[in-house]
């Protein structure tokens, strides 16, 4: 066994979140591995289709749910297209968990605002469910989630679950032009939705993930509310291959996204060389 050798997983469930985004529920072939496997929300893995290659996704399910992991992806290249051709019962390789994680222990006893756009909800979803599974250890939970259109919203069933919960404040938004006649949520871009939903930064952490442009325009809103740079958490992506610090590909200056990330604070991100 060498460090580049993946575990064998079986696809147990396939969910098409949107026209182009799919979620796979994976279980370890080796049940003893299934029992031992642990990870923290925010970590990622290298998922492979044998014969096609590996691709990097976060682990989109929470560590509080044992026995399986989930990943969500869009078919953009060779490996993700191949992943889409697989069916329930097919084998996927998995190497991980790699990287750092959201500091949930630090966040316990405080409030959290989760902000996500589009498929950016995938890594955030892992944290959200982790927190909801330990709900009484956190104060106020606010979720602001949006996408370009109603069709682009992911994890739609769970959005309904969160909407039903009294202990979660949920704001859903679609971009102007993306609403349907039945749409009951906000029609606004994320920065505006955050302004309208979040009233205080007191005792609160922010977790934000989405397209770079969304982050670019939402960070000033959070700063205006009084969130300091070291209480805003996000994830960075970069081209990866080994995922464990050796292939020399994912660094931004001296920071290796696969080792020092993928979770960073806004303060850390600002100090990085602007090469990502």
């Amino acid at each position: 066994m060498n460090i580049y050798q993946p575990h064998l997983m079986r696809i147990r469930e396939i969910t098409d979140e949107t026209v182009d985004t799919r979620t796979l529920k994976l279980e370890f072939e080796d049940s003893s591995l299934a029992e031992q496997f642990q990870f923290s929300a925010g970590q990622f893995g290298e998922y492979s289709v044998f014969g096609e290659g590996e691709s990097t996704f976060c682990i989109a399910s929470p560590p509080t749910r044992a026995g399986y992991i989930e990943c969500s992806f869009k078919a953009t290249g060779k490996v993700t297209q191949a992943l889409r051709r697989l069916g329930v019962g097919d084998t996927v390789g998995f190497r991980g968990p790699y990287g750092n994680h959201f500091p949930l222990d630090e966040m316990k006893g405080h409030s959290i605002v989760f902000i996500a756009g589009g498929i950016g909800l995938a890594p955030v979803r892992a944290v959200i469910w982790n927190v909801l599974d330990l709900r009484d250890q956190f104060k106020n939970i606010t979720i602001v989630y949006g996408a370009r259109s109603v069709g682009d919203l992911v994890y739609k069933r769970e959005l309904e679950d969160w909407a039903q919960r009294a202990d979660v404040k949920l704001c859903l938004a679609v971009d102007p032009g993306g609403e349907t006649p039945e749409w009951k949520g906000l029609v606004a871009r994320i920065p505006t939705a955050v302004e309208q939903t979040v009233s205080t930064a007191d005792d609160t952490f922010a977790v934000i993930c989405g397209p770079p442009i969304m982050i670019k325009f939402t960070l000033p809103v959070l700063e205006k509310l009084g969130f300091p740079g070291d209480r805003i958490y996000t994830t960075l992506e970069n081209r990866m291959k080994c995922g464990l610090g050796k292939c020399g590909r994912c660094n931004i200056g001296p920071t290796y996204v696969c080792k020092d990330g993928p979770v960073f604070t806004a303060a850390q991100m600002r100090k990085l060389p602007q090469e990502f």
Partner: protein
Amino acid sequence: MSELQETARKLLSEGTVSVVIGYEEGPRGVRPAFITAPAQADKLIFDTRCVQNLATYLNPRRKQVAQLGRAAVVVKGCDARAVAGMIREKQIERGNVVILAMRCGGVLQNPETNSELTTQTVSVRCGGCTVREPKLFDHLLGELPPEPPVNTHRVEQIAALMKMSSSERWTFWTEQLSRCIRCHACREACPMCFCVKCTAEKSQPQWIDSSSTPQANRAWQTMRVLHQAGRCVDCLECERACPEHIPLGLLARYVADSVERRFEYTASDDPTVPAPIGVYRTDDDEEFIR
């Protein structure tokens, strides 16, 4: 100042170009120069050590060079053919480059030796050159030196290869190409390899495996040299760039000879002359189609 230096100085001071791409003395011999200030024009040199094909730097995808602005480029006849090829294939516009063509009497096979040109030291590609006075130019500079001596080394190597049986040649090339590490330095140094995405870089489908394996290496080198058929100007930059010292010039010359035989065409320094790979004539030799 030499004619070249004076011409460059004038082009820069009058603002005709923002950079003159030429040759200069470097810490380890002659190296490409990017002169942006008129006062620096006296760094430009031209002698038998100037083997590099500077046409490569005109590729608009070389953003760091392109952002310097309009360029003048120093070329030998062989290099001028590469510039013509880039114009022919719409990579650059004739009006966007100032061509400083040097009359040339040959260059050294190994510029580090800095010796006189003899039949042993001259580059194997110089003998019998028909473009010693390049016909593609904005300025034609320098004195015309005597004809270069003829180095028959490569001709002899190819003749020896052609005397082998197919399986002996296969063994020869498999052994030579076993050293190929798929670094693609040959492609990056070549002025005519300017595809935005090389066939070897495509993953859907993966036409050629990217690993250094016998079959993938053969496929890569054969594919590249065939894509160069009729386009390669025999500048030998590929061979010079190869860190594994694979005799790529043999393949290039062989394909160029084949194109000459079948299509009566040599890479032309006239951009208006169409190349065989881009043109169909009803009298094309098709004996290979049965």
